[in-house]
């Protein structure tokens, strides 16, 4: 889907056309922006099976997602699991209707892969927490209305045990953001600064100092979302379906096709290998949904899917560059089609796939430990 057609919602929601606004309102009225969430909080109240049918029907009519947001893909599921009734009643309906746009306050300048070492502090003063510190790689912080944020509420205990999960309004005094320009030229991420930000203590989700449990659960949802990037390949789509570069093999045939096949046999083999992996990866995502029908949401395999999906998406762009040749390496201006220029930017953006939401290496660590049960790194043999 083309970036500027995504509807993110929020106080300053932008719609490309009146139809997408109407589409959001109609879908939200039925709770179908969040089909499986409870009706009590504005969700669709559908079973997993019913929501699969709904998605199939939406796909069949080629419907655009009415609403895309971190509230839906990340915060909502954990708030439903760990939030109290007041918090759910306050925030969930607004997520369903797209009224509030959320951002994620996780990484810090000194805490990337080692997220639990985070230092942003929240100190209780009466019935408010005073928050000081800074976050980095906060996606769309400059456009978000509220933030779900990891803060340290106890400095005396081991790092995982002193973290809390808190929600607050980005319009609060003391919050400021600064976009970061990426290698792709765009600025989807920000640095976010908190300077004596006052947050009601009732905004803390779950137990004090037990935020790491919620943080990890949310990361599983985030990984499931990001692993979806790898799925695009099997449907053959980077965006629309009409352009000559809608899929890798289509692009390769357009630029390098000869007599019904890709003329370079080495490239053709690598594209076949990629497409096989994409198709089998899509089956694996589907199988993981079938297997989790009884279970609650994503499980440890989300790390495997995140790892593989991101590697696939990066491979897709490297192969696109090889298929299109120097025409894929234009930065701007004349001499290139819009599509070609777009691919260069998407290729650069794809490099973040295996960094955001936990690096590829962190995902492999998690698989090794949680799925395969391999011993902790550098652990001494206990006899």
């Amino acid at each position, binding site marked *: 889907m083309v970036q500027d057609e995504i509807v993110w919602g929020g106080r300053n929601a932008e719609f490309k056309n009146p139809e997408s606004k109407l589409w959001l309102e109609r879908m939200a009225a039925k709770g179908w922006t969040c089909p499986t969430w409870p009706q009590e909080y504005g969700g669709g109240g559908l079973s997993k099976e019913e929501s699969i049918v709904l998605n199939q029907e939406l796909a069949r009519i080629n419907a655009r997602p009415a609403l895309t947001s971190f509230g839906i893909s990340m915060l909502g599921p954990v708030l439903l699991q760990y939030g109290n009734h007041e918090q759910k009643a306050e925030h969930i309906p607004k997520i369903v209707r797209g009224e509030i746009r959320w951002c994620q306050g996780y990484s810090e300048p000194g805490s990337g892969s080692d997220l639990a070492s985070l230092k942003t502090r929240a100190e209780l003063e009466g019935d408010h927490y005073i928050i000081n510190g800074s976050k980095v790689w906060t996606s769309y912080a400059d456009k978000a209305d509220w933030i779900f944020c990891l803060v340290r509420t106890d400095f005396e205990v081991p790092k995982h045990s002193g973290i809390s999960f808190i929600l607050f309004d980005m319009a609060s005094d003391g919050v400021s953001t600064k976009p970061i320009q990426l290698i792709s030229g765009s600025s989807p991420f920000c640095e976010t600064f908190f300077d004596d930000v006052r947050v009601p203590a009732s905004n803390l989700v779950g137990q004090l100092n037990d935020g790491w449990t919620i943080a990890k659960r949310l990361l599983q949802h985030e990984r499931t979302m990001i692993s979806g990037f790898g799925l695009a390949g099997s449907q053959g789509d980077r965006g629309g379906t009409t352009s000559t570069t809608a899929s890798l093999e289509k692009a390769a045939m357009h630029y390098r096709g000869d007599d019904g096949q890709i003329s370079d046999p080495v490239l053709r083999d690598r594209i076949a290998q990629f497409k096989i992996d994409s198709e089998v990866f899509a*089956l694996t995502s589907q199988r993981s949904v079938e297997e989790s029908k009884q279970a609650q949401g994503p499980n440890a395999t989300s790390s495997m899917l995140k790892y593989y999906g991101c590697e696939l998406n990066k491979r897709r762009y490297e192969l696109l560059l090889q298929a299109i040749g120097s025409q894929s390496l234009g930065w701007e201006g004349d001499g290139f089609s819009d599509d070609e220029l777009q691919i260069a930017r998407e290729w650069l953006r794809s490099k973040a796939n295996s960094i955001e939401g936990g690096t590829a290496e962190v995902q492999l660590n998690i698989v090794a430990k949680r799925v395969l049960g391999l011993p902790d790194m550098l652990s001494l043999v206990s006899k």
Partner: protein
Amino acid sequence: MPLVLNEDQQMLQDAAKSFCLQHAPVDVLRRLRDEDDPRGFDPDIWAQMIELGWTGMAVPESYGGFDFGYGGLGVVLEQTGRTLVSSPLIATVLLGATAISKLGTEAQKAELLPKIVAGELLLAFAVDELPVHKPTHIATTAVKQDSGYVLNGSKTFVLDAPVAEKILVVARTSGDTDDAAGRSLFMVEADQTGVNVTRTKMVDSRSCGKLTLEDVVVTEGSHLGAQEVSDASLNAILDIARVGLSAEMLGSALEAFERILEYLKQREQFGVLIGSFQALQHRAAIMYSELELCRSAVRGALSALDDQDKTDLDIARLASMTKAKLCETAELVSNEAVQMHGGIGMTDEFDIGFYLKRARVAQQFLGDVNFHRNRYASLCGF
């Protein structure tokens, strides 16, 4: 296209798994090899497999089978792959019974399928003539003569040729060597005049051989289906076998991987368990990811084989996708299995080498990764 096992398949899997572990462990293959048994299988174990109904898994009830579908046969093959069971299951059941039930005339099916189910007939399927799989390359000829045909030519890499009573031979009834059209399937008796089988000992210790046909006279009734096979029909049989073989390869690769994990959790060096080293952990995690993909490919392809709505083209694409993916992963896992076991992995006394050897033969059989990627690309139109 269900990707998880249903309840019946789950029960079948449990039963097959415990049978293979108890009655057909890797030791059996080792013994067959050490005794240089030309049959390549243990008749007592085979008798029990027949008793369990494995020979009739995908055969329709009307021909004495159990109509459990290729999904059921695939579940069994995955488990036999785990302990490297060497048996007539691939040549006689997966290839032979499939060819007869897909292409045979009513009379041929009624005569032969019940015998296969009852374990009274062993078959071989002879297609390859070159050291690489290329089913269009058929130089073996079958020339019409009187009330039958005369066959001449030679075949290689014929699984179970030394034990088969009947051999299904792909021969050319018209056209030139590399034509897709003009091929037919014939059944020749292993002991008839002009049929010569030479046993070839392969690295995986299974029964295999080369076949030569010298003025072999067969009747009209030996012409399977009594007509030439189209490229699609022949590939429909080969594709079923490719998917079934992929299921076996999945079982072997999963077992090899689990043995790796066990070793990583038990072997100590530098005062720590080697499984705590990140270099090994990441390689294990990558293998796990690839194996999860393989599992999905095999499940998806097996389900498709039993799905009436799938076209030959759907099946062809899924079969090549699956075999290509399994070839690639079988190579990765079997190599890592030796490497991660270190020196002991190189010894004959230790079982892991059997997994490496079987993996390579299975990779080559019915098309390697190159064959299937190439075919997949063509089927996808690039």
